[in-house]
């Protein structure tokens, strides 16, 4: 019996391999650092506008309306309403509120909506897609579980999502949580579809059949052998999903159906600014750019993840 004597490269876990490839992708890396920055900003935004109020987004200063970025407030230096640092970094809006403070607060709102909505949609999508892919052949009366779930998915996909969300939001009490849940409930279909597709192909893989032959319980086969191998593409679409959830929320807020005031989100800052496009262009330019950069960053990271996680796309 020959013991293999080949010299082997240093051990590399799939995670290390992933990092090595991801690090070479400058666009994705750029996106990644933007997202880290955003994450820090969002948490800081929550902290400094609500817990330790350094920047108060709700202070109305009618004497200071429509000041362009980097303006110095007209209030005297002892006033409690003076912005932190004594300057309006991003100008003020039509009520004299500090746009920087509002953007700061909005970053947390926008990001949390993105993450929670995607979390909800992933949960539903993975569950339904997984069940359809693994137990699809089981009959329920005259149709299979797979037919039931996937035709329901198709039906959901037929609706123009944005208008469906608009309708739902119009009927339900407006709040930030309603928005999160609604967006999540109406965006799981893509995830369900490819989790099913992944499961269908992984179910036939030899290592799953081997696990079955070894008498490994079904639950363990699903969670130990199948889910980890199906998750990479789910992860990719989740990243891009966050971007589209942020975009949807901005769209809703812009139309006035989104997060109700006084909570600031990038969407409603943009919406407030739309009436003053020529007088105060910073009011829509700043939130617009922020949404653009964040959505771009999420998409770049998503693309980078797809490259790094999927060996089939990799050019060796």
């Amino acid at each position, binding site marked *: *019996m*020959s*013991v*293999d004597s*080949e010299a*082997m*490269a240093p*051990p*590399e*876990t*799939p995670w290390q391999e992933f990092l090595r490839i991801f690090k070479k992708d400058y666009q994705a890396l750029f996106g990644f650092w933007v997202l880290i920055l955003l994450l820090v900003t969002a948490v800081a935004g929550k902290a400094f506008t609500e817990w330790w109020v350094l920047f108060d987004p709700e202070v109305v200063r009618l004497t200071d309306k429509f000041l362009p970025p980097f303006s110095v407030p007209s209030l005297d230096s002892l006033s409690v309403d003076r912005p932190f640092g004594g300057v309006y970094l991003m100008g003020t809006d039509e009520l004299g509120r500090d746009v920087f403070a509002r953007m700061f607060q909005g970053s947390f709102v926008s990001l949390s909506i993105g993450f929670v909505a995607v979390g909800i949609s992933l949960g539903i999508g993975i569950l339904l897609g997984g069940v359809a892919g693994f137990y699809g052949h089981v009959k329920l009366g005259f149709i299979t579980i797979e037919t039931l779930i996937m035709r329901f998915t198709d039906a959901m996909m037929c609706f123009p999502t944005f208008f469906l969300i608009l309708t739902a939001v119009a009927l339900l009490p407006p709040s930030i949580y309603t928005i999160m849940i609604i967006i999540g409930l109406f965006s799981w279909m893509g995830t369900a579809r490819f989790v099913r597709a992944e499961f269908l192909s992984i179910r036939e*893989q*030899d*290592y799953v*059949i*081997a*696990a*079955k*032959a*070894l*008498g*490994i*319980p079904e639950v*363990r086969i699903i969670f*130990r*052998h199948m889910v*980890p*191998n199906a998750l990479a593409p789910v992860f990719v679409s989740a990243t891009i999903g966050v971007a589209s959830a942020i975009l949807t929320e901005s769209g809703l807020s812009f139309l006035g159906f989104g997060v109700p005031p006084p909570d600031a989100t990038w969407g409603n800052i943009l919406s407030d600014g739309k009436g003053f496009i020529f007088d105060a262009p910073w009011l829509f330019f700043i939130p617009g750019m922020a949404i653009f950069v964040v959505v771009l960053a999420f998409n770049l990271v998503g693309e980078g993840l797809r490259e790094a996680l999927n060996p089939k796309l990799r050019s060796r």
Partner: protein
Amino acid sequence: MTQSSTPLLQVTGLKKYFPVRSGLFSRVSSWVKAVDDITFHVNHGETLGLVGESGCGKTTVGRSILRLMEPTAGEVRFEGEDVLALKPRELRQARRRMQIIFQDPYSSLNPRMTIGAIVSEPLKIHKIAKGQDLQDRVNQLFVKVGLRPEHQSRYPHEFSGGQRQRVGIARALALNPKFIVCDEAVSALDVSIQAQILNLLRDLQEEFHLSYLFITHDLNVVQYLADRIAVMYLGQLAEVAPVEDLFTSPKHPYTQALLSANPVPDPTVVSQRTILSGDVPSPLHPPSGCRFHPRCPEVMDVCKTADPPLITIGLPERGHQVWCHLHS
């Protein structure tokens, strides 16, 4: 084959039909008869080679025996126990005694588990060993199949095809099975690696008194490893015989054609090829009578209508059986 002892595995009348669905309500319109009424046995410590061309149902036979697919009909007795009647809990226990090695060493190992985890998982799940004992057993298995125990924390993609196949063998051996289905276990490997793996399988057979059902399309491989050979054609058996008999005096015209197509590594030997005309018919609409008759060089009228009878060649103890009208 001695009359007194029961074989380790007795397969009787095994059938596996796949439904073909069509139309609006997915009604079953016809059946693909992948395996149609197969009967054979595997003795203790024996290797039965199952040969045949692509798509003749070899793999389906192997997987049906292990109940990785549910056969349509038939009986599988393993150590006298009716495998097809086992309840899920009993089946899980029975799986410890029968294992499988796959063809493709690249898809048969979970890419997200270390090879150590892959080999130790069955031991943990069946609560055979834990802690230091588990570690010792996994180390032993690695040494047995010619892998280094210190490579346990590595992932499958870091290994070559032959090494991965060794991991697959170690996994199959972990539960101390008596019977292993080797489904084209060496077909995906280079010839030099093939030889190593075949020798490994042979050594392990001696050491653990294993029985193999060795599924392959490579006659040289079965000739090296098998004690008896079963030849399959289009879902049915054509001939079963001890290796020597099959290679020296094949009785079924299909076996003869198959053997003549086998490359001989000697350029001076002029081979007498029996070239078959036509293609393998579709198992959707298998020919009536003998399934081989449209391509058989020695076809008779009776072949087209009547199913071929089972003929025993020579002494019954020899176990040379052929399903052919020619010899009746």
